[in-house]
């Protein structure tokens, strides 16, 4: 019985610590958002998988049927909310990412793809903290471009 009381007390302390951490995390929400972007070229012309993509390719392969994945760029952007991050892409295209707010455990991003200066695609997403998403489709050489985006709140 004594052990049970001690265990309950320990559990209550642990719960308190976790709740404090949660509050602290929301308080930090104004700090920069770290965004990792991998620009990948996927194609059926090659059969090689870039070693740097080994971890994420199996996930992509559950949907895509490309046989080759090449990492073209790997960028990390440290952005404040409402601050634009720009990544130059092949064929005079640009990927523009703007974290606009955080909602619970999700980061809201405005994402644009520009062709020269014209926005050809734009979306607003709520990306789960420390998770990734992929935008794909633009043609490039003999394949397509995929943008693997991971967002983390600091």
């Amino acid at each position: 019985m004594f052990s049970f009381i001690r265990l309950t007390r320990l559990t209550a302390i642990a719960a308190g610590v976790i709740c404090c951490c949660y509050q602290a995390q929301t308080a930090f929400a104004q700090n920069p958002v770290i965004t990792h972007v991998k620009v990948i070229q996927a194609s059926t012309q090659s059969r090689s998988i870039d070693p740097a993509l080994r971890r994420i390719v199996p996930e992509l392969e559950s949907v895509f049927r490309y046989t080759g994945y090449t990492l073209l760029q790997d960028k990390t952007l440290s952005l404040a909310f409402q601050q634009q991050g720009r990544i130059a892409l092949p064929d005079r295209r640009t990927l523009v990412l703007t974290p606009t707010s955080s909602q619970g455990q999700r980061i809201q991003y405005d994402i644009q793809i520009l062709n020269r200066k014209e926005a050809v695609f734009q979306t607003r997403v709520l990306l789960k903290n420390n998770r990734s998403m992929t935008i794909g489709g633009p043609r490039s050489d003999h394949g397509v471009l995929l943008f693997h985006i991971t967002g983390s709140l600091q």
Partner: protein
Amino acid sequence: MDEQNLVEQLRQGDKKAFTVLVNTFQKRLLKVAYGITLDPEESREIVQDVFIAVFRQIHSFRQEAILHTWLRKMTVNHCLNWKRRWKRRFRWHHDPITMENDPGLSQEDSPMDTPETLMQKKQFRDGLMDAVRQLPEKTRTVFVLYALEGLSYEEIADFLQIRRGTVASRLYHARKQVAQVLNSKKNQEKPV
């Protein structure tokens, strides 16, 4: 083993009966599933699911019905399941014409064929399957039931709960569209 016996044995969970069931019907069902999905792996998954479902639901099978009709109905329904459809549609969008599971040249190719004729045959098949892939799914399903299962207009109408005129019209569009693609391909291949 006649059908009545087979159903009876299946109801008792008999392994031999299950083997007979799979061996008897798999070829036809795989063809139907492939005709609709145009994806060998997915067709295999679908037909396996159908056999499992049949084995589990055999108690609900009415003895006066025909087993193959029931299996065919399940296969088509599985193929047209919206989740599978959506995934397939997406995959196709990404699917270049040559896939790693491209069957290439079929077993029917004669050993006397030259590489040139084999290539021509392959191009014709690729062209035809491309054209079939471009058909709307509803049209393709009618085409599959007619071309692969040999069902009549009435049977297809009954099966898909559509009118006989709709069957005729979808079948005509399927043929026309496929023939059109093949024609343009043939014309392109003609030397200028």
